[in-house]
């Protein structure tokens, strides 16, 4: 019993998730910048891909990421109503609600998350990355499935 615990703990330390995070230029990317300016620390597990609006993120990018063995994907944008392009994130919401259904079918839904982050929510950004990374750590590497 004890041994099992130890080994799983060891695995926790060794497994460093690889996560892709899509950010829109106007809010969530700015929120990520603010996390930096405020020096809020979070795990070095994400690679941010900047797009102009969360409405640019194709569901195919998420599937592609999983195909390429990326352990988790985050899509972030402005809060509903704040989108710099008026209504872009409303389409994002629709699209990813639909994608989640497919991901559920594939057993991948816990590896994906859609979040709204404003330019003043640096703290929230850092916390999101921390909790999501922990979540993925618990799930283990994707190729294990």
């Amino acid at each position: 019993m004890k041994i099992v615990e130890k080994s799983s703990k060891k695995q926790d330390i060794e497994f460093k998730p690889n996560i892709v995070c899509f950010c829109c230029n106007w809010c969530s990317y700015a929120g990520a910048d603010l996390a930096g300016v405020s020096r809020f620390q979070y795990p070095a597990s994400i690679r941010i891909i900047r797009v102009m609006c969360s409405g640019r993120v194709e569901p195919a990018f998420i599937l592609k990421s999983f195909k390429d063995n990326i352990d988790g994907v985050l899509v972030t944008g402005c809060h509903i109503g704040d989108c710099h392009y008026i209504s872009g994130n409303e389409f994002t919401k629709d699209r990813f609600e639909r994608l989640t259904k497919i991901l559920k079918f594939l057993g991948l839904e816990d590896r994906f998350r859609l979040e709204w982050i404003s330019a003043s929510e640096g703290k929230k950004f850092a916390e999101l990355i921390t909790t999501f990374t922990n979540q993925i750590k618990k799930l283990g590497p994707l190729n294990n499935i």
Partner: protein
Amino acid sequence: MSKSKKSSQKSQTDDLVGAVLVIGGGIAGIQASLDLTEMGFKVFLVEKTPSIGGRMAQLDKTFPTNDCSLCILAPKMVEVFRNPNIELMTYSEVIEVSGHVGHFYIKILKKPRYVDEDKCTGCGDCASKCPKIEAPNIFDMNLGKRKSIYIPFPQAVPPVYLIDSDMCLFLNKGVCKVCERICEAQAINFEQKPEEVQIEVGAIIVAIGFDMLASKLPDNWGYKYENVITSLEYERILCASGPFEGHVLRLSDEKEPQKIAFIQCAGSRDFHIGIPYCSSVCCMYIAKEAIITKEHSNSSECYIFRHDLRAYGKNFYEYTQRAQDEYGVKYFNSKISKIVEDPETKDLIIHYEDLNDGKFNDLRANLVILATPLVPSEGSEKVAKILGINIDKYKFFKEKTLYDKLSSEREGIFLCGFCQGPLDIPETVADASGVANKVSTLLYPVRNTLLKEKIVSVPEKKINLEDEPCIGVLICHCGINIGKYVDVPQVVEYIKTLPNVTVTVDNLYSCSSDSQTSIKELIAEYDLNRFIVASCTPRTHEKLFQETCEEAGLNKYLFEMVNIRDQCSWVHMEQKVDGTKKAKDLIEMAVAKSRLLKPQKESKLPITPEALIIGGGISGLIATLNIAKQGFTTHLVEKESQLGGNLNNLYQIFPGYQKASEFLEPFVNKVKSHSNINIYLNSNITEIRGYIGNYDVIITTKGNKVNNIKVGAIIVATGANELIPETIYNYKKEKNVITQLELEQKLRKENLEWLDNIKSITFILCVNSRQKEGITYCSNICCTNALKNINILKKLKPDLALILIYRDLQMSKKGNEEFYRDSRKNALFLRYSLDKLPIISKTKNGKFNYKITLFEHNLKGDIEFYSDLIILATPMIAPENFKELSKMLKVPQDQSGFFLEAHVKLRPIDFATDGVFLCGCAHWPKNIQESIAQANGAAGRAIRILGAKEMKTSGLVAEVIEDYCIGCGKCADVCPYNAIELIEVEKTFEDYTLRLKKSKVNSALCKGCGTCGVQCPNSAIIIKHFSFKQINAMIEAYLKN
């Protein structure tokens, strides 16, 4: 005599300076500056504090959309910072003004920052090492502390630190200098002295904003207690980057308060010891703060103590209703007598009178937020003196006339924003565009004379897409900001090994000007066709590097930036190994994208320098005149047979000293006689095609005369109508139950005999408005209109009995509260509530026509009185024909049917569709003063386009691959800017020809958001610079090695 006058005028034109001084860097000054540069003027923007942004930057969210305030403001601040034609002088003050309209001489004092603005990179190393944390943080309303070397807030513009000379150990005690030792950029300069700068400008705009009165409040408001704070302090507490990181805590014990009380009108509308006017914005921001509080913690209880509820803007009243219905915020119609502290718990006991039943009650709250009066900024009297302009009795800057609030009494000096009188953000933004228009009307002969045009001497390199990519990579240490936490040399070694990377170098500061030179040298030496900089954030620095690339002959879309500071080294300060790996990955992903980058063209579109104004009311007339005056042909279309709109139906204009016809006449005459103006009466728009700069419009005049015109910009100024109440209060049957407009028409009659038989008149306000169903909003102007008419009637017939029945009195803005107090003597004011409407019954053969029965709250019973004439104040509504126009222009209407602006806060007079603007009551019910200011603004927004001759389109747009397009139109459905059109094309297949539908993107309208590309079922749309292939390549590159 006349000759000499003429010659002096001419020499004055020669003497005009094409530059403008803007004093104050809040949203008013920012918007005015941006508009002015687009109109062709150089701007000197002088701000007293170390950063621009003003009050708006301090707000957490904005009503009624709950937009994050800084999110929408910061891009504008950065735009100012980067604009080559705005000279930004922060931490500076104007100390002397001489000269005259068209040519002023200005002396400006620049206070020492002790930090060299050109050298400081904003890294913050100095502040982290500065030993002194004692200075109150002014930006956080003194709630937190900061170092003596500091930046006001993280997004400050310019992003430059400064030393607080009162706090700095070295400046006061001669010891320390830690910052000087730590600063790798060598930006600290203790030798800096105050500096005087002299400039010359043609006009001056004053936009110095407001302060929130707090410590000077009378004792009964309890501000001296720890847990009584002002609403601006509360904004900082709510803000995620505020003193408690967005946790709602009270100051005494930093615990979450359970019961929170908001007190409106704390110290304002008080003619004895407080501030006599209404600050106009408090009702709304208090509702907002209560809603956000509930969002933070649903279990908290929010109580709002209100007097009148003044929710007069678009969606405002509905917002206050939502606060109650959806969020459970409780409103008390009350008068506060005193707030005292319970010394043990530090809770507050609020003693108040409930105005619904006249009883005195107590309420205990854990935290109290006061909506204290907003007053002219400290030092505005001094500014007035320096500028030689007047202030009014409330200490706001005095406007030229009630109807020209954007001008001061001194020619060439203009007023904008809260420093002239209470305003909310959208009104301020509209005024800022209006004031820019005023300046432009004055200085248009010298437009474009002082603008810096960027000249690129190196011709653009031709890139063949078959050419092998040759990528240059520059990796920045940012002093120690990146270098300390990321192993930069290791990253360099790794990136060098990647295919297509021709050269990789690192340096200390990529943003310095000598770095720009070396980037250009690298591009030339290695004949690079792509370039990457890995440093800080593209949000502030991408444009700089793009320009450098352009100067080296590289198309700016061949540049890519990687953020390894804000999003890597700064957030992984304890994870050097992982951080270094992340930096490598990020750059490798950028290299993958870079290989696929293509040069993009920014095409130029010609602009037809003519404007179309739809609607000939006061807004339309003002807009038309302003545009015509600046030399552009203007077409004015009016559906009626005469110009003037609603003013033709009014007797006297507010406040009741001048006949509406007399007020209107000079404007109509000027429009009629101006050679640049074409008037189309009895006409309608029947077709609009085209896009910004190039609209084809068909105007049809009665009798089917058709005119085709071509214009570059369109202003919608179609006005609004008064609601005809039909069934309410038996309006249809009773000839003595009339609307306010009908009363005005009666008053317009030469013969006032009708008044002889009338002994008593009752006005009923809020008829069919501010209710749950039907018209839900407050129509803004009815209250002041009713009071105006009461005063007029009293003058005409002093023994007339006048009664006014109201729910809340909308007397916001400067002067209206006083106007109301003065009018009180002329009528009996009685309050009613929505659940107990007054009842009107006909009297039979009595002395009077009608009996009115009303429930009186204080008496708790019905009272009865009699009147001969009943005036119903019904709301302004959007006319039916808006629908047609909205379809033709492809612009939306809001839920009440008025036209919907592009953004309720920051683009109040623009439509989302470029080149179409909005003003007057077509946007929302407003009075003459507001309509005129807004019309000026709309004219200004249009002038930016008309004056530009040609327009540059962005390269970041969508493009349809025609062969893949199946013409389903899904892309057009999701485009928020109407940039996609379905067109028919002919396709020939061997021997037969088909007509097929295809989508076409108008790059003049496309903003490059990319939503259409995702929607396309057939991958027929390429989003340039963020293409499917490019993003896919980035994902692929991540785990490749």
